[in-house]
């Protein structure tokens, strides 16, 4: 297991109980800095719930989640975010009434206090750098458009841009390629490969072709627990994983 | 002992009136999620209907009850079709819109009928005093108690024993899925809204002989009814009854010991604290998340 004394992101026997239903049941996960980890598994395996617990949307009922030594269990969402954790949600969550530019301004969150932001106008960031981000995701012509008028695909890209503007150390992605064309999926894969190293990424995905393209280490979840962990080849060969999820075809193309 | 019983009766009397008003509000809120600030005006319109039927058609209160229900229910149905159905996904805006409708209703009454106090005669048959467990109570108040109970049972029956009720409960749980099963949610909503309005109208009619009828009379009722709904939660009808009784008794009790003003203030503060710490009300079943 890599990582320093305290590890980078460590989930230690984490479980969560919803009125008797254990969505996550004794999950152990250890992600090293700069790693690109894919989290796969059948529906209901607890993948999204695991991400929820890391970013603070849900609170684990037992176990410890720590990031660079800081215990995240009882921290509020904004405190967790300030530790350097950002998330892209399954359902597009942008600020629909604000323009694309304004969305990016909000996402540029180097300073999160009230006093600090009272004396800042606009984004407080380099106008250039945010425009470059917009260019990266193909939205440079839509800066004044209220985000609610963007197409579904454009909204997804805006979400990526927001995450990049936030620039967190740990990025949690929940089904980033949902609804994307093959071309867009390729673009996303390139983006992820560029991000890893400087950022740590955890990607929940169903698109196996995409996983194969970007994945180094894969964690497979099933019924709230970790079923298997390893490289793409190892996972493909694993009998239990095939039985629970992949089927006899293995990880074939998209 | 006498004092306690007398207190209980007063509280119960307050509670039954409150229940009548709150029942309609709870059903509307529970079914459609609409916070109907015009509910007080439904009460007011019921009272004015009673007065109008009495003044222009010479009908007594008891005979007019069914007609009054129909009149106010029709009004509620119209409101739902014209205004409310645009706002189902905007809860804050329904508060504002319904309150605007309330203002329109009040002003319309003022401009047509006039703002002076009007009076509705108490039915002769019920105007005597009756002795209950040694306490003197007005027969009419007992009548209200019975009507409230009967309406509650009727509502319960409609909700849980008829096909309309099943459709309503399905729509309450999940509107889209209910539509997939062929349930016309639009119709269910408008009929529910009309029913809730009709109940409020009956409440207004029944209360009219006790107090005078004026355009503003509805406002106090809507605030009180709200407290009942917030306290009782919208998951259960029983909750509505229980909280009507609680709030009715508490108000009477506190008014007895200090004064009306402080009583109201304490009840309001209690509700504020409740909203903060248990927004689903006292009687709601545990939801999944």
């Amino acid at each position, binding site marked *: 297991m890599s990582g320093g004394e305290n590890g980078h992101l460590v989930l230690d026997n984490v479980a969560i109980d919803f009125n008797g239903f254990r969505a996550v049941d004794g999950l152990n996960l250890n992600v090293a800095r700069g790693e690109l980890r894919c989290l796969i598994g059948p529906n209901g395996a607890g993948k999204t719930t695991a991400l929820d617990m890391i970013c603070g949307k849900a609170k684990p009922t037992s176990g410890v989640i720590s990031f660079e030594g800081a215990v995240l269990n009882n921290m509020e969402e*904004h405190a967790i975010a300030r530790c350097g954790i950002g998330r892209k949600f399954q359902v597009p969550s942008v600020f629909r009434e*604000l323009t694309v530019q304004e969305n990016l301004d909000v996402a540029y969150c180097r300073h999160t206090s009230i006093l600090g932001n009272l004396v800042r*106008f606009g984004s407080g960031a380099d106008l250039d750098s945010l425009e470059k981000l917009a260019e990266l995701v193909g939205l440079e012509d839509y800066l004044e458009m209220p985000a609610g008028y963007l197409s579904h695909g454009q909204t997804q890209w805006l979400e990526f841009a927001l995450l990049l503007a936030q620039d967190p150390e740990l990025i949690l992605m929940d089904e980033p390629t949902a609804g994307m064309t093959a071309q867009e999926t390729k673009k996303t894969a390139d983006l992820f490969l560029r991000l890893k190293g400087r950022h740590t990424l955890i990607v929940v995905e169903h698109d196996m072709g995409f996983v194969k393209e970007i994945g180094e280490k894969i964690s497979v979840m099933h019924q709230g627990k970790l079923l298997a962990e390893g490289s793409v080849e190892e996972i493909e060969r694993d009998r239990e994983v095939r039985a629970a999820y992949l089927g006899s075809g293995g990880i074939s193309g998209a | 002992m006498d004092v306690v019983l007398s207190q209980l009766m007063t509280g119960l009397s307050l509670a039954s009136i409150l229940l009548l008003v709150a029942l309609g509000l709870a059903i509307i809120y529970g079914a459609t999620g609409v916070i109907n600030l015009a509910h007080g005006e439904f009460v007011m319109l019921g009272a004015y209907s009673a007065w109008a039927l009495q003044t222009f058609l010479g009908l007594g209160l008891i005979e007019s009850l069914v007609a009054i229900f129909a009149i106010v229910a029709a009004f509620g149905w119209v409101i739902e079709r014209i205004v409310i159905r645009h706002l189902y996904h905007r809860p804050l805006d329904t508060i504002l819109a319904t309150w605007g409708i309330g203002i329109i209703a009040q002003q319309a009454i003022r401009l047509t009928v006039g703002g002076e106090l009007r009076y509705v005669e108490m039915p002769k048959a019920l105007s005597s005093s009756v002795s209950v467990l040694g306490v003197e109570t007005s027969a009419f108040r007992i009548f209200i108690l019975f009507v409230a109970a009967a309406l509650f049972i009727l509502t319960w029956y409609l909700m849980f024993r008829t096909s309309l009720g099943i459709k309503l409960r399905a729509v309450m749980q999940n509107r889209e899925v209910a539509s997939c099963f062929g349930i016309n949610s639009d119709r269910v909503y408008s009929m529910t809204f009309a029913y809730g309005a009709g109940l409020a109208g009956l409440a207004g009619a029944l209360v009219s002989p006790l107090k005078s009828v004026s355009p503003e009379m509805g406002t106090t009722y809507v605030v009180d009814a709200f407290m009942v709904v917030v306290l009782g939660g919208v998951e259960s009808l029983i909750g509505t009854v229980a909280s009507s009784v609680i709030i009715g008794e508490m108000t009477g009790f506190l008014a007895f010991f200090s004064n009306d003003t402080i009583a109201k*203030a304490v009840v309001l503060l209690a509700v504020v604290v409740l909203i903060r710490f248990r927004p689903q009300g006292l009687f709601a079943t545990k939801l999944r998340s």
Partner: protein
Amino acid sequence: MTNRTLRQVVVYAAVCLAILLVPTFVDDPFILNKYSRYLALGILAIALSLSWGYTGILNLGQATSFGLGSYCMAMMLKLRTVPVHTGSEGLPDFMVWNNVETLPWFWFPFHSLTAGLFLGIAIPVVFSMLLGWFIFRGRVTGVYVAIITLAVLVVVNLLIIDQQRYTGGFNGITDLAQLEIFGLTFDAYGSSSYYLIAGALTVCLFLALAITKSKVGLILQAIRDHEARVRYFGYDVAYFKIFALSVSAGIAGVGGMLYTIVMEFASPTFLGVSLSLGVVIWVAVGGRQSLLGAALGAIVVTGMQGALSESETFLDTWSLIMGFAFVLVVLFMPKGLAGAVEALYARVFGKGEKAKSIARKAEGGLAKPASEPGGAE
């Protein structure tokens, strides 16, 4: 500064200038007094626009801060009146009539002018901070916030009415001295009061505008749009909301203090449900997301009510019309008249896609149901 901001500043300045120039054309002290009242209510509207229009907090109890401010001013001015009204030993007359022996502790600070002025802002602000802490730390949102703020307003109202020995009860605090600062006397019917209020309106307007244009203003709007998502960027939403509520309270408090000067009394109606719900209507119709729109909404509507107050029928008809206008605005024009004006301007004078975007933004209507990001609804 963007073009749009520049345009806004120019329009705001022009309107304020026009307001400040009114006394040069209008001489009648009674009319000036009426106008002053409308302006004070305009300040109240600015407060609500900040908390509701920008931050999405439907504060049905905005009048609480307004009323608290007005009572502070009244208490201070009451203690300065001629002994005839303060009875023996410097006690306000209503206390003497109620057989109160000594001045209650909370009246003492109001002997001092500076303290009185300070408290007129500080008390509403601290009250709102505590209320905000209670509400927002508890993650209460939407409808429940509205209910709580209204309930709190009613409680404060009831308490003030109940404690009539110390607060003047139903009748409020009347027979006040005139405010004197730096040798200037502010006569309720003079142009001095008018200028004072118009000046305060200008200051509040630009202060609020500056806040909305800062990054804080942007974050508040993001909170209004999608509160939960804002947290995941690292912003403490509760603090920002408390901030918005408190600043609104301060502005409303200023409005309340000025209102007392111009009405020459303070009464529980300044903390009343009618006023508090009324300002919501004025702001909705004028345009909740425009500070100037909100202020003008208040000024014009109360102005019309004032003009029509001669005839009861006219007044009732006006209220009926307002009721309709309100419902229409809520249904079809969420950004009120100001939003409609801005959309029109963009369509007529703007060019191309950018203008269309601006027009769409100005019209609003993108509000979606509040839900947690991730779609677990």
